[in-house]
């Protein structure tokens, strides 16, 4: 069973006015088989957490640790983290002109699996995965994310998830910008991934509607750069009803204290 352990994680970015600390000590453990939801106001640092785990060069870890099955994730390069079994479905997937989706997927699968997938089975595998997500096969010849609509980008993030089969997947607002049908298609995709193995999911969202499709084991409230409360699935409903007001104080308090 896989285990992602985040301990007292402090992260900062460089701004024109010097370094700015965005995460003020995050503690979180995600085990294979578990689904954790993270909810919190805009700008509270949810994406920062996701990027820091994935190794985005803009975010500097100033204290704390992240390990995957005991291995030091922070020592790994971005691609090593992915090959170790981490996956981040991004809030804003990046357009890469000139690289076809087909070529990209094959290169990624080759890297993550350690060998090039056999061509015949691979073509079939991609076809099936695309049709599962209601993606037109014509997308395979288009440049990565280039000119894709918001919803199409999100579907392709889940397509990559289903092909790369990571141990731990972080989904950063994969539900945002999806219409009702797309939300169901994407949720089904995530659930297929969950069902296929002993995998952990960290689901960042603003809305409970996705949690009706993907039931979380734990819900965390994120505010002011840290987790300020954790609870069961019903915590999400309470948040939707009452908002984050009651946690705002805790969050800003943390900022002042830092």
């Amino acid at each position, binding site marked *: 069973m896989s285990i992602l352990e985040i301990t007292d994680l402090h992260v900062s970015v460089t701004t024109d006015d010097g370094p700015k600390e965005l995460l003020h000590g995050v503690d979180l453990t995600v085990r294979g088989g578990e689904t954790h939801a993270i909810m919190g106001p805009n700008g509270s640092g949810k994406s920062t957490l996701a990027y820091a785990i994935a190794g*985005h*060069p803009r975010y500097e870890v100033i204290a704390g640790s992240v390990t995957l099955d005991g291995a030091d994730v922070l020592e790994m*390069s971005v*691609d090593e983290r*992915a090959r170790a079994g981490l996956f981040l479905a991004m809030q804003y997937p990046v357009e890469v002109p*000139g690289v076809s989706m087909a070529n990209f997927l094959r*290169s990624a699968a080759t890297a993550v699996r350690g060998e090039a997938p056999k061509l015949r089975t691979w073509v079939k595998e991609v076809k099936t995965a695309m049709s599962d997500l209601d993606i037109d096969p014509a997308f395979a010849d288009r440049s990565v994310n280039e000119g894709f609509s918001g919803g199409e980008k999100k579907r392709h993030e889940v397509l990559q998830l289903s092909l*790369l089969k990571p141990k731990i997947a972080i989904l950063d607002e994969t539900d945002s910008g999806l219409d009702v049908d797309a939300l169901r298609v994407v949720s089904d995709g995530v659930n297929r991934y969950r069902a296929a193995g002993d995998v952990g999911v960290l689901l960042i969202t603003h809305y409970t509607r996705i949690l009706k499709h993907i039931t979380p084991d734990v819900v965390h409230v994120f505010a002011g750069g840290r987790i300020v409360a954790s609870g069961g699935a019903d915590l999400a409903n309470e948040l939707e009803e009452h908002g984050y007001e009651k946690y705002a104080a805790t969050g800003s308090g943390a900022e002042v204290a830092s």
Partner: protein
Amino acid sequence: MTEVAGLAPELAGAKEGQGQVPVASAGERFTSYDVEAFEVPGGREENWRFTPLKRLRGLHDGTAALDGAAAIEVGGAGGTADARSADAPRGVTVETVGRDDTRLGDGGVPADRVAAAAWSAFREATVVTLDGTPEPVTISVTGPGAGADAAVHLQLRTTAHTEATVVIEYRGSGTVADNVEVVLGDGSRLTVVITEEWAEDAVHVGAQHFSLGRDATVKATSVLLGGDLVRISPTVSYRGPGGDAELLGLGYADAGQHLEQRLFVDHAVPHCRSNVLHKNALQGAAGRPDAHTVWIGDVLIRAAAENTETFEFNRNLVLTEHARADSVPNLEIETGEIAGAGHASATGRFDDEQLFYLCSRGIPEDVARRLVVRGFFGEILNAITLPELRERLEAAIESELAISGV
């Protein structure tokens, strides 16, 4: 139907190039065989403003003597056996001719001072005539050596209804100014690949004159890889209706390199087509002069050129800092009766976000960069139908990537 397209639909969201109205209409540009008929450029002229004149080694101001010798060999696609010998491939005639050969000039007239200087200075020209369906021919031009400069004159001719493939390879050191005439007979089809694989020191300023007979088709691919400064000015003109010119090209500029492509397509006859796609990748380095590419695409559709179909597209991929891509597409239309016309230019950066995205899927950094460059150039390289040549060029591009640690 008349349709004038601006940006290609697949480019929605891409940065639109600044189309500019040139100082004078492309149709009124001055041409002459005589170097003295041109003013010495000072650098601010429309057709010289992007070129670093200081690095031209006097090609533009008469101080280059052009008295060196560039070696020209003509052989089969595989080897370099000189086709001037008795066992020349069937359908290929190679001649070395004097300045008085009346065929010279059939392709066109120099339109800038360096082309005219080359025309005024060459002593003998090489004329390669293709007839029937000959095997592919390779012409290699080797520079005169470091410190020397040379004028070269080449003419390719196809007889009516010939189908042929020619590769022109530029190599070696030194400075070369040349004119390449490509004169297509009626109904002939010529595929020509021109590679600039110069040594690092080389300077090459070339004019290419494509002249298409009735219903003739030319597919030209230019590959600009080597040299310190390479400036190529292809001109396409049509002698009769039905002509079709496809001009593909790629340039890979690294630190300090200047690669310039200045195209002029002159649609003066009805029912002709032109299709242009030129792609540059740039990678500079800190502490070195910028990697610089220039693409100028002038397309003129004259009043008589009814039912013209033309599209030109320049795309630039900036891989690093310290790189500059200039792009000026320009379409002038003097008739209302055109089949379709469009031009576009887009310059994009390969940035940290793209690198992060690819790496976050497990792809190592060097593979990610190669993926991007290969994908970018694939469209051009895949159109090269000679597999050995294509593989050699792919390998040359890979090694450029490797050298710079990209």
